[in-house]
């Protein structure tokens, strides 16, 4: 057991910190610091800056831009990025479809998609969820039917985050309705400018439009856009969702928000011991969570994921929500204000929408109920 980072890892940490705080556009980082929604351009620019320096997809195979880092270095990279208010690489590209294509795609698919995916020249959307499926992903109904070499796709996806910016969408579609539900699913890559694709925004309770419905009406998709074998989509989906859990605890970002709250509401916190107690509790829980992420990272080198990795999403989202609730309470009546007076007023004005938006964190991406199910079944054998 060893507390300190090795000299090399310490140097790596410093290198990351320097890059993130000096090479990434200041105005983008300020937007993140103030909790504003990023524009499409800001997200593309930031990822391209990272990609140019080889920092967008370090966990991919080295052939496609990966760096062969230890899990600890990936953790450091991820934390320093968040601490510096640098937007993390778009998950749909970097964490989801990229690794899937690298693992299951044909050589042609890899060459065609991976460089543009790493550089966010293609913005990917995720087409998994459907209105009637919910946590029961495999009950999806969108169909793809053979027509010569092509597939004809019909159906509806939903909860497609940032689908309004999407160039391409990776989908799960039913290619064999006759077999057990998981067995008849394939993964198709679909150009969102194809005829018959329609994106309809969904307004959320925070007043924003970050998610969408995506409708497919007789959309023709070339056969070469199928990833892996026909009817093997469930394998790829599980691989993708497994990846999704790595680094899923939003520790760095949550710590940043809490630090900002302490800075902007110091007087309020000093004036009420209950606030101070909440800050201490949250800082402590976040420390425990970060240490757990480190423990898991140090353990996962090459092998099966550490069982404790399942707690990262569960606890990470709970803490993210708890911090957002604290911010609302620190704001108090200022959360209802016009925000016209100064930056602090504006920060607190945005706190209720953020709090409301983050209620999604325990629902999407494998709800916390699904996480508990995984823990109780897989880890505890219940």
């Amino acid at each position, binding site marked *: 057991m060893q507390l300190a980072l090795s000299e090399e890892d310490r140097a790596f940490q410093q290198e990351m910190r320097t890059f993130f705080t000096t090479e990434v556009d200041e105005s983008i980082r300020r937007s993140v610091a103030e909790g504003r929604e990023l524009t499409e351009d800001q997200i593309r620019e930031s990822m391209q800056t990272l990609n140019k320096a080889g920092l967008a997809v370090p966990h991919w195979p080295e052939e496609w831009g990966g760096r062969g880092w230890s899990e600890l270095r990936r953790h450091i990279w991820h934390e320093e990025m968040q601490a510096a208010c640098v937007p993390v690489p778009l998950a749909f590209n970097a964490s989801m479809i990229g690794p899937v294509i690298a693992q299951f795609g044909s050589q042609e698919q890899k060459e065609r998609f991976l460089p543009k995916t790493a550089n966010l020249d293609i913005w990917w959307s995720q087409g998994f969820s459907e209105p009637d499926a919910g946590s029961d992903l495999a*009950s999806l109904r969108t169909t793809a039917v053979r027509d010569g070499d092509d597939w004809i796709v019909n159906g509806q996806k939903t909860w497609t985050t940032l689908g309004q910016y999407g160039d391409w969408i990776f989908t799960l579609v039913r290619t064999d309705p006759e077999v057990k539900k998981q067995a008849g699913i394939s993964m198709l890559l679909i150009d969102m400018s194809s005829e018959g694709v329609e994106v309809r925004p969904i307004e959320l309770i925070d007043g924003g439009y970050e998610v969408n419905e995506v409708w497919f009406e007789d959309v023709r998709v070339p056969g070469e856009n199928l990833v892996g074998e026909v009817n093997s989509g469930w394998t790829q989906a599980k691989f993708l969702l497994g990846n999704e859990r790595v680094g899923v605890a939003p520790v760095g970002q949550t710590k940043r928000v809490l630090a900002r709250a302490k800075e902007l509401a110091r007087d309020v916190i000093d004036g009420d011991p209950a606030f101070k107690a909440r800050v201490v509790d949250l800082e402590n829980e976040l420390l425990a969570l970060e240490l757990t992420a480190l423990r898991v990272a140090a353990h996962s080198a090459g092998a099966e994921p550490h069982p404790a990795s399942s707690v990262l999403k569960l606890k990470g989202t709970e803490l993210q929500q708890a911090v957002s609730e604290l911010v609302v309470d620190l704001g108090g*009546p200022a959360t209802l204000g016009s925000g016209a007076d100064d930056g602090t007023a504006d920060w607190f004005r945005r706190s209720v929408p953020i709090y409301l938006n983050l209620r999604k964190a325990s629902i999407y991406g494998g709800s916390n109920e699904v996480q508990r199910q995984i823990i109780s079944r897989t880890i505890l054998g219940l």
Partner: protein
Amino acid sequence: MDFTYDDEQTALRDAVRGLVGKAYSDYENRRRAVADDPGFDEKLWTQLAEMGVLGLPFSEDDGGVGAGPVEIGIVCRELGRVLAPEPYLSAVVLAGGLVAAVGTAEQRSDVLGALAAGESVLALAHHEPGARWTPSASGVTATQAGDGWTLSGVKDAVPHGARADVLVVSAALPDGGTGLFLVDPSTSSGTVQREGYPLPDGTRAARVALDGATATPLGEAGRDVEASIATVLDIARVMAANEALGMLQTQLKATTEYLTSRKQFGVTLNTFQALTFRAADMYTSLELAHSMVDWATMVVAAGDPVAVADAAARVGLQVSRAGRHIGQEAIQLHGGIAMTAEYAVGNYTSHLTVLDHLLGDGGHHRRTLEGSVFEHESVEPLG
């Protein structure tokens, strides 16, 4: 000690429920109502006036009905059940309540009469940037100029402040203390700059910047009425708790209906015991809050301001907790659909969150109660 409504109260409840239910039982109507200014349904407001609901708390001499806190609570609860965005709490309970408490007979008759008739919407301009639920004013100051008064300074988060026909404005008095003033933006000389904006629950608030705005003292000129403001805020806290209770009842009902109808993995969600037990905990929170709301409403009816302040803090604490618990769980047990603006249940949580921070949240109330914890051996509702 009696927790039941009498026949008239039941009739009032049914009448209000019928009216607002017709307006908002289709949630799409509520969405439409808040989509455009003024953020509520003026027609329904008029119907509430016709039913006598807007004049309920005011004496008959003032153009009202002379009903009591229990009746106001019934109205607030019914408005809460359908998430009605009408400015009942702000115009009738807060602004109207202060006019009734402090105004001269003539003011009461004029202002409350027009309010009760649905002809004039009132708003209370009290909160100031940086303030934290205090009954005093300091950022807006009142100056006596000859026979008249002028106000200068900024009020923020004024509920329905852009739409209001008459503003009830609190201001620091020249000789100390806080006074109340009536400002009619359409006739006031000087600057009354109102910038309306939507709150996270879709309802409207405004920033009101006053600069030498002429104003009429409410009641006796120059009198410190901070105590009256405090008491009306306390009463409004109890009425807000009634509104919240109505909302929580709807949220629990929506949740249990969803659990029994929505299928996942081939079965309805109520097959999953982990979810049904959480619904049971929501019910427990709801019923405890319900008892506290009824009790606090009766304390308001009994009328002792010290007891009202205590009861307002207690019900505020309880309902804040229940609101977060039930409001968060209602979304979680529904899943993604409750995140969407077109589905009602998540929007209840939005409004609960706004309401929680309008007049003082649970932490604020707890802090108030900490001050008196050694003044009693235990809390005895039966004395």
